[in-house]
């Protein structure tokens, strides 16, 4: 069997089933998520590259150990993001001495999505937002940062965010709505330019 060809046509669930039968398939699952999860960890926590790799390795081990617990009613991506989220938080707790502020890397696409949702139309306002969004997001409450990261940076929908953070969809909607208000408030605090 040529696993190198087959695995490309498999979806995540099929790869999970195959991994449970043959652990060699696990590398394909890891390859699919390696970059995404590494980026997600960096966005969640301001930790060294060494820590990022430690967390990622622990995520992959935990995912493998608990493969039989994977609930097929969820997306595999939601499940592995949940493990990553929890593992990152656990790791941050262990590193008590280090700050646990979010490390928000913002590109133009992300900022545009946020601007659109915040109903910011003036070009000057957009530029200001682009320049200061990182600072603004770092100042809002962590529970809001988490949903903002998942919604705007990881491009997850409400159901996925609900499954990752283990919160009801309604709570996710409320958190996002409050997060937007907090962001606007923070922006206004820094510069009273938003109408």
């Amino acid at each position, binding site marked *: 069997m040529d696993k190198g060809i087959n695995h490309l046509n498999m979806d995540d669930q099929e790869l999970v089933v195959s991994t449970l039968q043959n652990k060699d398939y696990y590398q394909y699952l890891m390859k699919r998520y390696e970059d995404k999860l590494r980026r997600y960890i960096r966005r969640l926590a301001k930790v060294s590259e060494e820590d990022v790799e430690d967390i990622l390795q622990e995520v992959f081990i935990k995912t493998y150990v608990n493969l039989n617990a994977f*609930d097929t009613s969820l997306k595999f991506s939601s499940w592995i993001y949940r493990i990553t989220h929890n593992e990152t938080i656990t790791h941050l707790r262990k590193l008590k001495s280090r700050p646990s502020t979010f490390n928000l890397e913002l590109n133009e696409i992300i900022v545009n999505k946020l601007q659109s949702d915040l109903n910011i139309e003036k070009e000057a306002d957009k530029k200001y937002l682009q320049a200061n969004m990182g600072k603004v997001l770092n100042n809002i409450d962590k529970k809001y940062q988490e949903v903002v990261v998942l919604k705007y940076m990881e491009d997850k929908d409400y159901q996925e965010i609900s499954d990752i953070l283990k919160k009801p*969809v309604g709570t996710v909607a409320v958190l996002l709505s409050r997060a937007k208000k907090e962001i606007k408030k923070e922006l206004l605090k820094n510069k009273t330019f938003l109408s």
Partner: protein
Amino acid sequence: MADTIKNTLKKIEEKNIAPKPKWHHSLRDYAFWVFFGLSIILGACATSTIIYLLANHDWDVHKYLHESLFEDIFTSLPYLWFVILALLVFFAFFQAQKTRSGYKYSPYLIVGISIILSLLLGAVIFYSFLDFGIHEFLSNHVPIYNSLVCSETAVWNNVGSGLLNGEVVAIKSNDEFTLKDCNGKVWQVEYDQSQWLEKIPLAVGMKIKMVGTQEGDNTFIVKIIRPLERLKKQTNSKRNKIFSPA
């Protein structure tokens, strides 16, 4: 950047790591549901005890027991059981949240369902007389319990206010019997048979409570007379019927 995938596979190989079996995870999930169910059942027992205590309370003679109906309600509510019920509801909520799909539901919904289930099941337990006499058992075997729950015996042990309770030790005639109160004092009680409204006739060994007046040193003239725990006999007879061997 380190080769995380390679390192992970190496670690899996070296430490002989394998996925935990499916039953391990299922067992964990079932355990949370079992604890959830147990919390609801215990909550239902607490509810049935609350109903029992409220139903057993003599609301119609509140003017003899307390100065006002409000004071009677305030002092008679079984707060201990309300606290126990609340704790069990929250325990049920935390167990439900730990299940695989528990997070999908609003906390208010889970708490609401837990309360409704406990109340409904508690009412079923009470009305089917399957309450197993929790209050009676605790009252008789756990000394601190009576100080935590407003005790019928204590409330009805105030001859100065016309309240007396105790055990019938001898029936002298149709309108007189001897009673031993909870302090061991023996009373001659005078009453009218028409005051006894129970189906079961007054008998030796029965625990009763009365409103009336003291005459002399050890005579008590009855105005109102009834069993100490009005539902007890009914409960016991029904329970005996259910659990007696065929």
